[in-house]
């Protein structure tokens, strides 16, 4: 066989493999969207589950996931961004930077169930928060911290050093440079990271299994010390341990569609922001 036809075969195989991966993605999305669309309605999104979760909607789970996302980001986002600013802009000691970086890299690879264990041991038992929004959010916040730090670090590093030098040469202080020059330039990428983190957090099940999630609650939570229902846990319950799995199938497809919808929306949103600001940068 000559080398040209070898090349044709090899390249054909790579194309095929890529098509296969795209096919898998479309299969999963298509399956969820096709089956979930039937369950979708305004009522499904705005009412509570009824009759052992076979009827009614998923409103409490949507609200619960919303609370968890907001609370965990309120904790992880400022902490992560400030840590990243410290690492990239301030820290002069290379050892400290390396320690923090090794720690966060390592943390990024830790399975989410291990965060669940830790959250249960520290927040639920030791601090005595019980199963609550607070305990769940802190656990989720820790889980997402490495991602926030990494995306912010990358965003800050993408700002050319000339910006910093220029600002400092004009007599601005370090803080002024960071606040007025570096941060505005890095903001689009930081926001993109924030949005992707939200998408990730809203789908996590394992960390809230023992720190926040409830099987069923008759009313919405009143404070951060209450348990909540959450979308991913609700889907898990519907798919595996409902009293009547056949009858709650429609609700399960609907919940899966809402979860996938959140991720799709967040990814699309992040993409739009990225593109918008990239175009804007080009015009300078």
């Amino acid at each position: 066989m000559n080398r040209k036809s070898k090349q044709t075969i090899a390249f054909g195989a790579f194309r095929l493999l890529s098509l296969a991966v795209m096919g898998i993605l479309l299969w999963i999305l298509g399956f969820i969207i096709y089956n979930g669309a039937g369950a979708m309605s305004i009522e499904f999104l705005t009412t509570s589950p009824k009759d052992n979760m076979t009827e009614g909607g998923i409103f409490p789970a949507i609200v619960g996931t919303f609370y968890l996302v907001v609370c965990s980001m309120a904790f992880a986002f400022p902490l992560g961004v400030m840590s990243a600013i410290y690492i990239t802009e301030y820290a002069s000691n290379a050892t400290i930077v390396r320690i923090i970086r090794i720690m966060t890299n390592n943390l990024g690879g830790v399975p989410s169930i291990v965060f669940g264990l830790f959250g249960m041991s520290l927040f639920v038992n030791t601090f005595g928060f019980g199963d609550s929004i607070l305990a769940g959010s802190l656990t989720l916040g820790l889980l997402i911290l490495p991602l926030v730090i990494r995306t912010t670090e990358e965003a800050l590093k993408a700002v050319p050093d000339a910006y910093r030098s220029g600002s400092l040469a004009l007599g601005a202080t370090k803080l002024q440079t960071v606040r007025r020059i570096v941060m505005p330039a890095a903001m689009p990428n930081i926001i993109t990271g924030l949005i992707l983190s939200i998408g990730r957090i809203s789908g996590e099940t394992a960390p809230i299994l023992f720190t926040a999630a409830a099987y069923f609650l008759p009313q919405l939570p009143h404070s951060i010390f209450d348990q909540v229902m959450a979308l991913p846990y609700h889907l898990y319950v519907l798919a595996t341990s409902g009293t009547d799995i056949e009858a709650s199938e429609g609700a399960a497809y609907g919940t899966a569609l809402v979860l996938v919808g959140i991720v799709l929306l967040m990814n699309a949103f992040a993409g739009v922001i990225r593109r918008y600001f990239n175009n804007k940068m080009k015009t300078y």
Partner: protein
Amino acid sequence: MLAKRCNKLRERIVERIFSVSGAITTIAIVLIVVFLFREGFGLFGSSTIENGYSLFVNAKNDISSLSPTDTKRIFDGEITDWRDVGGKAGEIKVFRFDEIFNLYSEDAFGDNYALLPDKLAEVIDNNPTIIAFLPDKYAPKPSSVVKRLTDRRITAADFVLGTQWLPTATPSPLYGMLPLILGTLLVSLFAVILALPLGLGVAVYLSELSDNRIRRIMKPAVELLAGIPSVVYGFFGLAVLVPLVQRTFALPVGETAFSAGIVLAIMALPTIISVAEDALRSISPAMREASLALGATKWQTIYRVVIPCAKSGLLAAIVLGIGRAVGETMAVLMVSGNAAVMPHSLFESVRTIPATIAAELGEAPSDGTHYQALFMLGCILFIFTSIVSIAAEIITKKHHTSKEL
């Protein structure tokens, strides 16, 4: 003058705040390690018998302690003669605490069950081949007729090498994690073997062959694949793959290591693709141009120059893919069937370490050995994934330094 000072002060304060948040992050990570290991290592040295209970035999019995496996087999009726556990021949009579209420009427125990220990001692005295499982609260005092079996302690060897995971067995639960470790490895390795050709193929395609237009579609698609929550993958697996596997291979149940492996392979794909693609892209264009200038075809260049150069990066992709598969919880919990037995084939139900934690932590009381055993499993996962991250880092670092040379 004052304004300038204020400014300086503000600079200082803000810098402090930044450094403090860096410190908090580091402390949080240290805390995770401390709490995980503190709870986990409590397991070793705990009694093998259920908390608050002890085993008693007649004082004439030679046996002075029993291993947890023997205890379990005696109480399950698998061992029926003392000879089998190293004692004098004689049929073992198993006695559980509740049975005392069948032998005596309620008023024989006196006020507040004050005479209960004496009655239990009587029973043990009357049956030379008895083994009694009694709560410490009512246990008879060791005497010339009653002997309390010495506690054994759970050892690291029991935990690591034990082949039975029976955390709720009474009187002595068994925490052998070998079936869980093997289950995890079986599913993860199968998943990575499935995902490798796909992942590496897509990575080569994205970095070497595709034009910008296709990249602009493929990259977000891969990101999306990474973004789909694991519980949705689990649901998809349960609704589509499990019935498919069951029908195709004519199995009694579709929840097998095979189904779990397929789901995990899909989930490990984005990690493998993005790490491998980065590795391929980091090869300098000069290498490719040199190869092409020497008359090699594009495929020869990829095959003989680009891939060998990116070898360590591709290895890192494989390692991280395994790490991703090993730690995955919800999807595996939903499709693997969760039978905690030694796995024999891909077409049986298996249970992985993360799935075990997720399935059992809710029922384990927080002061018992079961809880500690689950934390110990968490420690094992933590250690494993740490090794994976560090290995990947070392592999890629070596790669970078060798490239600079």
